[in-house]
């Protein structure tokens, strides 16, 4: 199962500290000095609707539609996630349209001469949550969130959460008796 970064809306206060941390974690060391709205593209974005505040980010879908529609193999299922090979992107934006959640974007990036083959002035690349695989201490957003609302979920964590829910359901069932459980027709 793919692992993914996910936030708990029950704890989010919408402060956007995670967004800044994400941008800095994916920029050169002096990024703070050059940061501007034009170049600010966090891979998780805080959304505030009338009833919920939460950052949204790539769900690393098992059947990733972005990877299915990508014509160049830029998006691959690998290492328990959906990985991006930026040098393969041709900027067709099929992934953006296919993504159910709107969490992958094709953006121009100012390639630095040091880390890019000199093939384009402004290379475009598909940008999405990459679980901060390049960071020794893991995802930057998880580190900075003052509410500790963000976490990495993998098969083990999900199994544990499911187990807790089953336990809870069992307790409810025991309290009400089998015939009165909600949704169960009495025989």
């Amino acid at each position, binding site marked *: 199962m793919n692992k993914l970064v996910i936030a708990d809306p029950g704890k989010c206060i919408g402060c956007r500290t995670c967004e800044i941390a994400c941008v800095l974690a994916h920029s050169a060391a002096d990024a703070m000095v050059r940061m501007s709205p034009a170049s600010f593209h966090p891979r998780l974005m805080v959304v505030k609707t009338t009833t919920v505040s939460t950052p949204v980010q790539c769900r690393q879908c098992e059947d990733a539609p972005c990877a299915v529609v990508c014509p160049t193999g830029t998006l691959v299922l690998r290492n328990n996630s959906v990985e991006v090979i930026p040098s393969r992107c041709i900027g067709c934006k099929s992934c953006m349209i296919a993504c159910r959640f709107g969490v992958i974007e094709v953006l121009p990036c100012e390639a630095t001469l040091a880390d890019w083959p*000199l093939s384009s002035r402004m290379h475009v690349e598909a940008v999405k949550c990459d679980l901060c695989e390049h960071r020794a201490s893991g995802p930057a957003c998880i580190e900075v969130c003052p509410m500790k609302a963000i976490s990495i979920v993998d098969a083990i964590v999900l199994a544990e959460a499911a187990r807790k829910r089953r336990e809870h359901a069992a307790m409810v069932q025991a309290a009400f008796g089998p015939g009165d459980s909600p949704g169960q027709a009495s025989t």
Partner: protein
Amino acid sequence: MAIKTISVRIDGELVTAREGDTILDAARANGKQIPTLCHHEALGAYGACRVCVVWAEGQGQRPGLTAACTTPVSNGLAVQTESAIVQRTRRVIFELLLGRSPESESLRSIAKRYGVTSTPFGEGAQHDLCVRCGLCVRACKEKIGVAAISFSGRGQGRNVSTEFGALSELCIGCGACAAVCPTGMIRVKDSGGERVILRDDLTIARFPLLTCTSCRAPLVTEKFMDLRLQGLPDGQSEVLCLDCKRKRMAATAERFANIWS
């Protein structure tokens, strides 16, 4: 099936390459920088711009200048990427490119890095931003699969065009051509709910844009939806903008509140 490895020498250093690699592949795999312009990892090697010129000699390879992106490695091959003749030749290549496209900022900045700030070529000739690298053509044909644009003409008359130079009926309006273009010759303009793909004064295509079913923001062309989302199961080709998709995701995320504690 194991891939056969080959030993080649790049700038005097013995490195390992895989059979089937080009010199460019082998160089990059071993941390050696060779500049390129018309090369793209996802598109077939073309050898149009010659910026990746190197000196190579060895078994089956007559000593001489060659494009690293299209030359396969062979056992015993010796490659020079920065010898005097390679550097001189590369500078001339940049001068030639600048002769065609003196106004291209990106070309100027790459050329400057290799010591080229002016060119003796192209005076009186027709200038435009297109360096004839073929990235747009290859992206459209090989990956998008519609071949709405291709090369036309020969020699000085070589250009990139649509069928008969008319508004393309094949184009789906994805804008990949503009995205890969290194000089900005091809541009996508979205305004007033319409998308226009322009190559200088040639209009490649023009489309009304489908709007987000929720907030009515102009989004994507219908042909794009038809062609590019073919691989997905039915019901997954919805027209929703990023913001509305995210809002919807946030709403479903509410179900995950406090789930982990």
